[in-house]
């Protein structure tokens, strides 16, 4: 082998404007870095991500001929791309630059102890430098990407995203589970803070969806299956039969008139009745009748058949079957929306028990019908609103504010007052949040109209048995008096929760959800429309409660994000892929079985990786007895260097724990913990891997041999993991390691495998601290045991061969 050129590494220590330098003595880190092998230049700069910082890197690469760069700053999740781009500008392969995460992993979580934080920052920098000694340039493979988008959900967000995409010349497949599009907005009376009629502004948009040549609408449809990746999503859509030819139907209503079956109308929240064959709503688009097969007496003409008899255009067809449609999509926009909080979960408010306790959506429907001159429920003179029902409530597990209830209740109160100025309307609120454009003025208008805002949350509602009115008892917290009053109706301003569809799609697409249950964005600040899955974007209330303007803005944004990806016509694949050395592979086929993504196949007696399908988890590596597989970018050599760097200067009595953190969940979780300034043991040193399956038993045994006191492995919980099936692989590898430890007489408690989602902050802190306590109590592993372990590991490897 040709002798390797001696690397020239540049190290840049960032102060992050005090974020790092207030805790870590950055000069000490810089001095320390100077002495590291192959480091030819060290700079200490206030903001590395600024133009000044990037310029320094670019100039040093050009003038000083650096061939590797380590930026000791924040998380690579945060600024990794910035520095890769800077390197590329200077002609350095982007995989020759990497970061040491001394902010999220040191300055922030260890802010209480400046010296410890500095020591850890030094160690992290050293680990990055030595890892980069083994770095090799990598090239991302480019694959073509088409122009078709799957939009899931045809509420206002889905509609807006579809129209924007279709107008820009992209092909849209819009899937809606209900028989008509429009979502919740189609149920609303008016919209705040402008008071325009919801259906009047929505209808034209819905009509545009129907008429747009670029939009294929699949309503009354479900997503049965989604597989594939960006540029090549395979979608199976099941279109349920409506038994009515929508093209032919003239919505003349004769079928509905003769239908003998009566069921509650879901569009009116069950306040009115509909027939088994019905028009989903007055503004339904498509404007055609639908036959509800669950309510219908029987699709056999013998059972009833009245509707078909009267249909003069012969639009009704009892033989319609569900249709399965296969669609290929390059990107996906999830706009699956919300459901309202089920007020029955707060029994003290008597919803569904007292006839005069309504939820706000029911009042919307009552007001819509009233506007059309139809009284579906008589409303009295005294009406009260109870805010925050199902929001900001630890008792039902919803800590979040639903954001829209203050304003929709104000709107409903205003409408009630406009209809009858003699009405007395009270709003019992916790905090009034009028944060949006025009909201404060809207609130003021309500006050001017005489709506009484009382700061207090009622404990319970009672029904007066004589007149069915509702008795509200509430503390006016501003005067400390208890108020009691009887109201004709009490309206519960129910909060929002992720819809059933949102939960289902999240599972199908493996999209992480936050602690509030809504879809988690890829980055709270800078990627609010992206998800953890490449090519999948989110819009509307599926991501969190928001009003119509915010949903529309987000939908247009998500459309733009999707266009950004597709418009280039090609897409860069991650270079992190398994690579098989044909010179070493002996064709045993073990890796074929080990691959959780079925990306390895035997070809001509040798294993071959199907690069686009390979997800880059590294689970195949430990299955290869011939050491023929490596993972690009996260190579064996690099990780081994990093482990050695983490342990080689360890003094007796010191405690060090290696945590293999998967990139998607554990690494981000540790970033989150750091950002929240939650402290955990500085003994824990994080090695970033795509998946913990990448940490082979051999590698872990070697870490123990070199002096690690404990090893932790973090992986995503299966529901959110980008790598299906790695959990089992890791479990097996950990068992293998534990049996080796057992034979060497080393305690098995020194190994811990956990599956996380990115929000398990306290669990992460508890587990890292516990591991640190356990290993400190056990003390360092004696040398002879470590040597024995190395022997055992070697023997096992030989036995495999």
């Amino acid at each position, binding site marked *: 082998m040709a002798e390797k050129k001696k690397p020239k590494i540049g190290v840049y220590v960032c102060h992050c404007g005090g974020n790092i330098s207030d805790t870590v003595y950055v000069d000490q880190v810089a001095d320390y870095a100077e002495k590291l092998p192959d480091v030819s230049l060290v700079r200490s700069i206030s903001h590395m991500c600024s133009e000044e910082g990037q310029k320094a890197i670019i100039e040093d690469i050009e003038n000083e001929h650096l061939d590797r760069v380590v930026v000791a700053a924040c998380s690579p999740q945060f600024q990794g791309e910035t520095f890769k781009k800077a390197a590329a500008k200077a002609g350095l392969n982007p995989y020759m630059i990497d970061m040491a995460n001394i902010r999220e992993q040191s300055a922030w979580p260890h802010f209480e102890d400046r010296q410890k934080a500095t020591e850890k920052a030094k160690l992290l920098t050293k680990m990055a430098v030595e890892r980069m000694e083994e770095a090799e340039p990598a090239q991302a493979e480019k694959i073509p990407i088409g122009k078709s988008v799957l939009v899931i959900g045809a509420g206002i967000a889905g509609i807006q995203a579809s129209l924007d995409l279709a107008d820009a010349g992209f092909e849209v497949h819009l899937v809606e589970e209900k028989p008509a599009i429009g979502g919740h907005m189609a149920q609303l009376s008016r919209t705040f803070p402008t008071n325009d009629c919801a259906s009047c502004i929505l209808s034209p948009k819905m009509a545009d969806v129907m008429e747009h040549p670029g939009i294929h609408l699949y309503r009354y449809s479900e997503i049965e299956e989604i597989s594939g990746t960006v540029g090549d999503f395979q979608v199976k859509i099941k279109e349920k039969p409506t038994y009515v030819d929508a093209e032919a139907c003239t919505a003349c209503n004769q079928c509905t008139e003769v239908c003998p079956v009566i069921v509650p109308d879901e569009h009116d929240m069950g306040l009115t009745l509909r027939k088994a064959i019905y028009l989903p709503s007055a503004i339904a688009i498509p404007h055609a009748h639908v036959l509800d097969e669950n309510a219908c007496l029987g699709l056999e003409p013998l059972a009833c058949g009245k509707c078909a008899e009267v249909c003069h255009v012969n639009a009704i067809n009892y033989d319609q079957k569900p249709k399965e449609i296969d669609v290929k999509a390059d990107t996906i926009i999830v706009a699956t929306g919300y459901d309202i909080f089920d007020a029955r979960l707060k029994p003290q408010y008597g919803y569904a028990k007292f006839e005069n306790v309504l939820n706000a959506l029911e009042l919307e429907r009552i007001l819509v019908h009233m506007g059309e001159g139809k009284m579906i429920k008589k409303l009295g003179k005294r009406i009260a609103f109870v805010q925050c029902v199902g929001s900001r409530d630890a008792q039902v597990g919803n800590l979040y504010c639903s954001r829209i209830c203050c304003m929709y209740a104000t709107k409903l109160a205003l409408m009630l007052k406009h209809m009858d100025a003699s009405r007395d309307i009270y709003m019992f609120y916790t905090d009034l949040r009028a944060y949006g454009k025009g909201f404060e003025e809207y609130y003021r208008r309500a006050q001017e109209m005489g709506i009484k805002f009382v700061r207090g949350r009622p404990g319970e509602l009672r029904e007066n048995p004589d007149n069915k009115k509702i008795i509200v*008892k509430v503390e006016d917290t501003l005067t400390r008096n208890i108020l009691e009053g009887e109201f004709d109706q009490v309206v519960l301003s129910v909060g929002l929760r992720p819809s059933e569809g949102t939960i289902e799609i999240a599972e199908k697409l493996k999209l992480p959800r936050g602690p509030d249950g809504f879809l988690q964005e890829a980055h709270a600040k800078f990627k609010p429309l992206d998800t953890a899955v490449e090519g999948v974007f989110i819009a509307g209330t599926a991501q969190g409660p928001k009003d119509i303007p915010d949903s529309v803005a987000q939908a247009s944004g998500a459309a733009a994000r999707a266009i950004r990806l597709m418009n280039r016509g090609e897409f860069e694949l991650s270079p992190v892929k398994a690579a098989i050395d044909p010179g070493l592979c002996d064709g045993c086929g073990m890796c074929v079985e080990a691959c959780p993504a079925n990306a390895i196949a035997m070809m001509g007696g040798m294993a071959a990786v199907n690069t686009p399908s390979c997800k880059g988890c590294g689970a195949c590596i430990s299955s290869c007895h011939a050491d023929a597989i490596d993972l690009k970018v996260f190579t064996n050599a690099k990780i081994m260097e990093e482990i050695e760097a983490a342990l080689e200067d360890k003094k007796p009595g010191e405690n060090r724990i290696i945590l293999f953190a998967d990139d998607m969940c554990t690494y981000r979780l540790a970033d989150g913990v750091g950002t929240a300034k939650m402290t955990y043991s500085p003994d824990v040193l994080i090695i970033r891997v795509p998946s913990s399956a990448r940490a082979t038993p051999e590698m872990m045994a070697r870490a123990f041999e070199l002096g690690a006191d404990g090893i932790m492995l973090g992986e995503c919980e299966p529901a959110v993991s980008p790598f299906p099936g790695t959990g089992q692989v890791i479990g097996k590898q950990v068992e293998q390691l534990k049996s080796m430890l057992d034979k060497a007489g080393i305690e098995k408690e020194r190994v811990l495998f956990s599956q996380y989602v990115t929000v398990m902050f306290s669990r992460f802190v508890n587990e890292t601290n516990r591991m640190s306590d356990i290993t400190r109590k056990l003390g360092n592993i004696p040398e002879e045991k470590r040597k024995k372990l190395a022997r055992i590991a070697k023997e096992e490897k030989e036995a495999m061969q």
Partner: protein
Amino acid sequence: MTRVIKLSAANEEFTRRINELTNDMITLCEQCGICSTSCPVAEEMDIPPSEIMRLVQLGDEYVLETKAIWVCASCYTCTVRCPRGVDLSKVTEALRQIKLRTNMNYLDIDHIDPEELRNLPAIALVSAMRKYTG
């Protein structure tokens, strides 16, 4: 008359002490008042439960002089309804404990009519001693 509450280090110490006795939940109260109308005996209190919480948050020891903390029946309705998950029953118990530990007696057994003493159930005496201490 409007009371003036002076904010001093002593107030912080008082809040800290209650926090310690109740697992650090005092600051979570957002003064929504749900406790006051969930409490079955609030109308018998001189200040409503929500005000007890506010005074504790402000570290105002005046709260120890209120009758409300003794009227509290520890029925836990406030606790199960508090949207912030604050255990209000624990707070009133902590306040009572602090007061009890000052060892002030207002009930003098010797001055109870012996006849009455014979007829009173033991449990009534125990709870009376507890209630009228402090």
